[in-house]
């Protein structure tokens, strides 16, 4: 019996007007090459976030959708929706 683990980005979604990149990472456990478990971990890369530690595929997506125009629009949105003390 051999247990092995695979960690891979299995879903990338681009959502909303500010092109948030939602990344799902799947951790899959195999027993003798048959999948017995799959768990998910998520994180979001918003326009303006540093994505240099992401996979090459995710970096390419962020570079394509997080244009300066989108980053500026996201900053405006965040400032407009921030609580007013």
């Amino acid at each position: 019996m051999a247990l092995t683990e695979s960690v891979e980005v299995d879903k990338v979604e681009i959502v909303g007007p500010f092109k948030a990149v939602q990344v799902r990472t799947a951790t899959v456990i195999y027993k003798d090459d048959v999948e017995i478990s799959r768990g998910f971990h998520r994180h979001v890369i918003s326009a303006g976030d540093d994505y240099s530690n992401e996979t090459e595929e995710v970096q390419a997506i962020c570079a394509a959708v997080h244009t300066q125009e989108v980053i500026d629009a996201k900053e405006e949105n965040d400032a407009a929706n921030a609580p007013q003390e």
Partner: protein
Amino acid sequence: MSKIALNSNASGSGVFTIESPNSDTDRTLNLPDKAGTVQVGEGIDDNATSTAITISSAEDVGIGATPNNYSDYVTLTLDGTQGGAIDIEKDGTVQAELWTYRNSADVALAAAHASGSIRLMAGGFTERARVTSNGITFNGDTAAANALDDYEEGSFTPTYSPAANSFGSISYSVQSGYYVKIGNMVHFSARISLSGFSVGSAGSNYLLVSGLPYTAHNSAYSSVYVGYSYYFNTRWPTGGELGRGTNYSYLYAPNSTSDSSSVICSYVVGNGTHLYVSGSYYTF
């Protein structure tokens, strides 16, 4: 002794022939004691090369296999190298299929047409659920907006971040976050505990709980609930508000001088701070 009658058809011109087989063994054709029509060359035909269909004495039917027999059940057994499949056609076009999914332990049921759905009925023929291209609908509702199209559960890593500038340093003893997404609604719970912290230039900039698993819809207002906060400086958060179009939450604490609460700043966090927070929010 019974009688045998052979009657020719008054309008037909073809010759009806009874021919003996090429055999040295006597053969007998027994007819049932009832009226009916014998059809040969239509219906079941295995061409004598293999057993295409087997009908057992228990009236179970096997195609490509000896039929299984389960007590008090009539069984149809299909067996091929990839399993079995049932195709239901209408005028030569496949409408529905039930089959063993290739190279897996799964079974598939499909409405083949691009706009087809699968209806599940109970209590007679009352529709209770329908699998459509938009998701699962209930009780005959066909609105796409009401279709349940997603369910997912998993984990995320909650963090603190300042709305502007940066902390001097931050280290965590616990970063635990779990979520369930049902349709467009995300439900989460999280704990953040710090083992080291210096506020740096973040100072009076708002404190954010970041790293939430999905981006909040930018047209929906959502709040979070703090069940436990410990070792904050001067103000203790009791709730918060998700930034619309973001995946972080501001934290709020009651004001001591008015009947309201207000957002807290980064300087209230300290080494040893604990925060238990949960909430629900609408996403895309």
